[in-house]
């Protein structure tokens, strides 16, 4: 087992959240960050309801960095015409892979139940389920709605502040998100894992923590290249 991170130290994280909350972007960034630390990383695209913004188009780019990407290839998707809402066998057995596993989970009425499709997810001790939240999305823009929403998802281990407004994002808005999400986390009894902020604000924010003391992680945009 040389060259493989021992199972006890492996990182297994599932990113879940509202439609267009930024799950995929966060998952990709997390995978890239872990890879930069020299770890063995597998990134899995399990976005079943929203197959449009998938990792498909950037699969090669990510693979070149050494990340093992489990996602459909465009060439494989002939016949997946209607939406491509399908999983492939490799996704089902992905927890058998060594090293870190980052799962990008889609939105949907059944929330974290998508994990039922992964063999071994239910009793995987390493698995951490994180909810990606953006207060720029009207259904999760206040403490009450966030609490209600997260409660419906099933098992959750932490929240992630990914508040932004696309090109109109400001540091203030991200900090406002940190406030709202930290308050919701308190009600839920969950930690805030991190606040993600676009790398272009690195010098403006000039801090390792956000206004509520949560760690800041800088975000690079990959998903803008992934239209279909």
């Amino acid at each position: 087992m040389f060259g493989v991170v021992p199972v006890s130290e492996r990182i297994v994280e599932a990113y879940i959240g509202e439609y267009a909350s930024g799950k995929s972007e966060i998952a990709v960034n997390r995978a890239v960050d872990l890879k930069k630390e020299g770890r063995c990383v597998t990134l899995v695209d399990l976005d079943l309801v929203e197959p449009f913004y998938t990792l498909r188009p950037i699969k090669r780019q990510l693979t070149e960095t050494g990340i093992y990407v489990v996602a459909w290839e465009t060439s494989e998707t002939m016949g997946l015409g209607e939406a491509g809402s399908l999983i492939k066998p490799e996704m089902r057995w992905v927890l058998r892979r060594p090293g870190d596993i980052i799962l990008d989970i889609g939105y949907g009425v059944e929330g974290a139940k998508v994990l039922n499709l992964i063999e071994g997810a239910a009793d995987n001790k390493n698995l951490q389920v994180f909810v990606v939240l953006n207060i720029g999305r009207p259904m999760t823009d206040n403490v009450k709605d966030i609490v209600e929403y997260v409660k419906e998802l099933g098992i959750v281990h932490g929240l992630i502040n990914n508040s932004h407004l696309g090109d109109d994002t400001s540091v203030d808005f991200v900090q406002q998100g940190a406030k709202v999400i930290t308050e919701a986390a308190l009600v839920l009894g969950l930690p805030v894992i991190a606040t993600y902020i676009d790398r272009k604000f690195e010098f403006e924010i000039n801090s390792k923590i956000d206004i509520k003391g949560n760690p800041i992680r800088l975000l690079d945009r990959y998903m803008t290249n992934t239209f279909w």
Partner: protein
Amino acid sequence: MAEKPIQGEKRVFMTGNEVVAWAALAAKAEIMYGYPITPQNEIMHYWTRLAPKFGKRFLQTEDELSAGFTTLGGVLAGRKAFTATAGPGNTLMQEPMSMAEMMRIPSVVIIQQRGGPSTATVIYSQQEVTMTTYGGNGEGLRVVYSTANHQELFDYTIKAFNTAWKYRFPTFVLGDGYQAKMRESLTIYDPEEKGLEFVPTETFLGKAPVNGVKQPVHLRNTYNTEEELYEVITRYMEEYLKVAPEIIEHREFSCEDADIVVVSHGVVSRAAKVAVQELREEGLKIGYFRPVTLRPFPAEELKKVAARAKTLLLVESAFGQMAKLVKDAIFGSTVALENLFKPGVGITSEEIVVRVKEIEKGALAK
């Protein structure tokens, strides 16, 4: 029951389909009828999540024919009803909408264009222009707004309800799969707080008796003789042409001294805008013209532009569907027509820049 769906105004980040669901709520739509088809599904997903919170209804029908006709039923019953569809669903939607045209039933349909013909792709195109403007067995007695971004999807979905009920022509918001799935920021707001007044709905069927007396109505779309039909259609066309100038919308810039004017609509006009701005910075005399209403078409406005320009470059993700509308509008003009047609495929600003420069070169060579 929750309060108003949107209080005041706020900046948000969403996909286009969600925008439509929120806009319909903001426009005080009361019921949606729909059937699953990509790429408009999330309009239904978000409407079904949100609607019960605000006392609004949804019916999933057995197909788009049914979604269209149930929408008409809802409208006849006095409700602000709407539906949304795409591609092959839009094909089926033409039957109910031709009934709406004949009976002047106000109705709102959101279209997210996908590749065609047939099932083709679920992704994107601008190939539903001909069908959405002139579909059905009639004269195109309808209004079609072609949007380019999320703010417009919000604004024009709200506007569509007023247009439909004010003029009593079926009104379409023509988006596409890219707009449906793209995510960007926009401002959502309560239209009434901004001073917008909603045109009241009218109950056509099932009206309560007045002073204990029921006055039954009899509505039809069938006529006995050619003359009878001719009289009705002539009257409708007169009304349509009379209100058309009030409805027509377009955008243009840098057309005053332009040699070449890029004409495009919908999401493609975003690329066109960037291309024209870049080319202007390079010192080329290029203009931008975008019809917002594809039906009625801004014919007079485009004619004026065509009279000054040497060339119109027609750019669309279809093989000349908008071009047909353009040619019809500028009939008689001697302006040269060039095109960049890419059916079912997106168009970038770079491609438009290259095409414009090709045309420039050709003009110089002459």
